[in-house]
């Protein structure tokens, strides 16, 4: 019964997501029209100057001479057919380009989520259990510093210390392309490349979740049900693991779900700093090349990603908290 309702809930949410994503697409399309210049001027410029006739010719070829509303209509029609168009800059279909870059970004995001949520939860619990001891103070101070430090600066410093000085980790890229690693060697190689970008991207969120977790664990430990558990004769360990932890997780999950979108934004900076071949880097490049088709495609995929992650968080929430009723009536 509950499972049935959950399936219905997910389907409902997916259906509701369609207008949301389309809205995002329209908005992005219109916003990009406001940016000065287009692919034709950039291409012409890179060719080392061109006659206005040639630029016009390019525009006509790309369909950029039509009224905005017509371009939008065409684009929407194509999106609905899952055709994201053609990147003139890269001379390849947008969909293929994006899918190539998707998995590095997912890898980076996934690693960041695991590190920040997992690490934040563990550190928060440790701090809360030893409240006002040196462990708590140490964790809290480090968290405040990490919280306050700008992302790009951390990235540069990490490269400086761990790559250049200590030579523990590579400075950039996702794998050592010339080494032609295969199997586990390749996995290990990618993992080594993944360390610094993940730390850079997750440090801020790690600090945030640590502080949040510490606060909620402290709050939940003082809750009446924890006293009840104590009055039942449970050990402090059992009270924390069985009762407090699950209750304290709920706000952290909520927060993490909201911030997945922000994580994508942050990955633009980090991917650029570490030359990580992900969507963020691609977005950065396509923006300067005025490759709007590609940019729109990336935006579209990001929107889909955020929507899907949000649905996932809701599902996790439903599984964690029996009070949340999916699909209304019980």
């Amino acid at each position, binding site marked *: 019964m509950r499972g049935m309702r959950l399936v219905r809930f997910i389907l409902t949410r997916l*259906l509701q997501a369609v207008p949301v994503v389309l809205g995002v697409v329209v908005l992005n399309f219109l916003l990009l029209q406001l940016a000065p210049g287009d692919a034709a001027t950039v291409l012409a410029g890179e060719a080392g100057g061109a006659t206005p006739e040639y630029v016009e010719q390019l525009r006509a070829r790309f369909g950029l001479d039509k009224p905005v509303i017509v371009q939008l209509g065409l684009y929407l029609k194509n999106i609905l057919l899952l055709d994201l168009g053609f990147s003139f800059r890269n001379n390849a279909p947008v969909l293929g380009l994006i899918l190539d870059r998707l998995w590095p970004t997912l890898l980076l995001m996934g690693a960041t989520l695991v590190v920040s949520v997992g690490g934040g939860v563990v550190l928060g619990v440790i701090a809360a259990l030893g409240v006002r001891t040196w462990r708590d103070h140490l964790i809290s101070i480090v968290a405040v510093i990490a919280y306050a430090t700008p992302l790009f600066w951390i990235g540069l410093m990490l490269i400086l210390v761990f790559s250049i000085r200590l030579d523990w980790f590579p400075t950039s890229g996702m794998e050592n392309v010339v080494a032609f690693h295969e199997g586990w060697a390749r996995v290990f190689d990618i993992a080594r490349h993944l360390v610094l970008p993940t730390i850079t991207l997750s440090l801020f969120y790690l600090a945030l979740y640590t502080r949040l977790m510490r606060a909620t664990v402290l709050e939940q430990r003082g809750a*009446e*049900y924890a006293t*009840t558990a*104590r*009055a039942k004769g449970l050990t402090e360990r059992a009270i924390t693991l069985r009762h407090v932890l699950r209750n304290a997780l709920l706000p952290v999950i909520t927060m993490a779900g909201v911030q997945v979108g922000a994580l994508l934004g942050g990955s633009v900076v980090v991917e650029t700093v570490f030359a990580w071949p992900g969507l963020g880097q691609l977005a950065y490049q396509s923006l300067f090349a005025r490759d709007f088709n590609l940019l729109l495609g990336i935006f579209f995929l990001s929107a889909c990603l955020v929507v899907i992650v949000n649905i996932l968080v809701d599902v996790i929430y439903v599984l964690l908290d029996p009070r949340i009723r999916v*699909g*209304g009536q019980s």
Partner: protein
Amino acid sequence: MSSAKPQSSAAGVSEPVLEIRDLSVSLPAWADRPRAVNSVSLTVGRGETLCVVGESGSGKSVMARSILRLLPEPHLRISGGAILLDGEDLARADDRRMRQIRGGEIAMIFQEPMVSLNPLMTVGRQIDEILEVHTSWGKAERRRRVIATFEDVRLPEPERIVDAYPHELSGGQRQRVMIAMSLVLEPKLIIADEPTTALDVTTEAQILTLLKELQTKHGTALLFITHNFGVVAEIADRVAVMRFGELVEYGPAANVLDNPQHAYTKALINAVPSLVPRKHPPRNAEALSEPILTVRGLEKTYGRPQSGPNWLSRILPGLGQGRRSAVRAVNKVDLDIRRGSAVALVGESGSGKSTLARCLIGLEQADAGSAVVAGDQIVGLSRKGWRPLRSRVQMVFQDPFASLNPRTKVGDIIARGAILQGESADAALSQARNLLDLVGLDAKAAERFPHEFSGGQRQRIGIARALAVKPDILIADEPVSALDVSVQKQVLDLLDDLRRQFNLTMLFITHDLRVAAHVCEDIIVLKNGTIVERGTTADIFANPQHEYTRTLLSSVPGRNWQQTIPDGYPARHV
């Protein structure tokens, strides 16, 4: 303190299970007094019920929690004395031994069953945990025991409730789960900390009966913490009265309740409103003929009714049928209140009494029906249309802590209503000072902020605020239910005085029949949004017609006790 000792020996406890000797619990340095509990000595005998009574801040809960060492250490800690359970001193037991005792030999029931249960765990599992910790039984055997205990506390369908989450149960059922939790290992002693305070009267009566019954059946000793003398009269064998962390009176229930020795106990018992109904004043019969509030067919429904398929289920049948079913909070209510009268609106939680009040002061828009206040229709008014009528009906809210803006000076809180009605700021402020004087506060209070006042004083401020715009009708929504008994009495008396002084009309919402009987000449009984009975208080108390009214009346704790008090609250004639 000194009066306690001779009485305790007179109590004659045969076989003590728990003996507390000179227990002191120290408070942190920043508290208003050095000790939460100050050298208290008590005994609880096998199979008996000891009630510890006191107002908020008396240290009764801290005392109860210190027995199981559940104090929030290190802020509160036992600083002296002994807690002997069958001769073993718990104040000096190590953590391991304490865990064996908790749940195994002494169990505890808390006040709020909703927050005392883990919301994310099935109730069956929460009880199972006790068995898991204290016994070596297998899973199936534990489950059998949990279900058997659920049957014992008469939960319906125990097989199903085992797997239910707390939020899926009613308040009474949750408290039964808590009782089952305390009983499951048949401890020697159960400590119940205000276990019925958060419940409705009828549920409270059921829970008290259940506790009594189970206690007889299992021979468990019961240490019952409460602020309610009615409950004490209902279940106590012996009573201990606490104030400021000290024991002021201690002895057999009959002695303490009917012949209290200490002045504080006397004052407390005198402050309990009696169940003697208030009579109609014989005078001003012609003033009574003028109705000031006339309500006809008033309805308010929350939630949308199931209105066929929505957009989603039209596209994909089977999806999106998640509409909340409608709750009819107020259902075709007719009401006539005459000028100068006081009508009690009595009902349990969810009966719609607060919704009705909110409709009458325009915080909610009624769906249908009419309500006429002194000649003006108020149902269906726009915000703008309401504005000139706002002063007609005013409300005194339940929670004096939440209903006053903490950032606004008391004088401004009181004056604002009058200023909005067009009074000049100076005039409104000087009127506010007069009102403060009238409700028994210093006029200087106008310059202070709400947090500087106690609960009772804040409720006085709330009353002054309501009176500032000279309302025709004063609606008091449970104005004393958040207050201690002695303060409760003062506020009720104040309302009574003001009513006589200004010929106020009062609609008094309460769940407490004692309060209703004390303040109002007429009673309206509300159940599920419908009026089931109405009449004069005297008639309804003497001869209740509706089944539900009878249940309510028979549920009042200690209903047979007070008539015997020599100088208790007499039946008052205005």
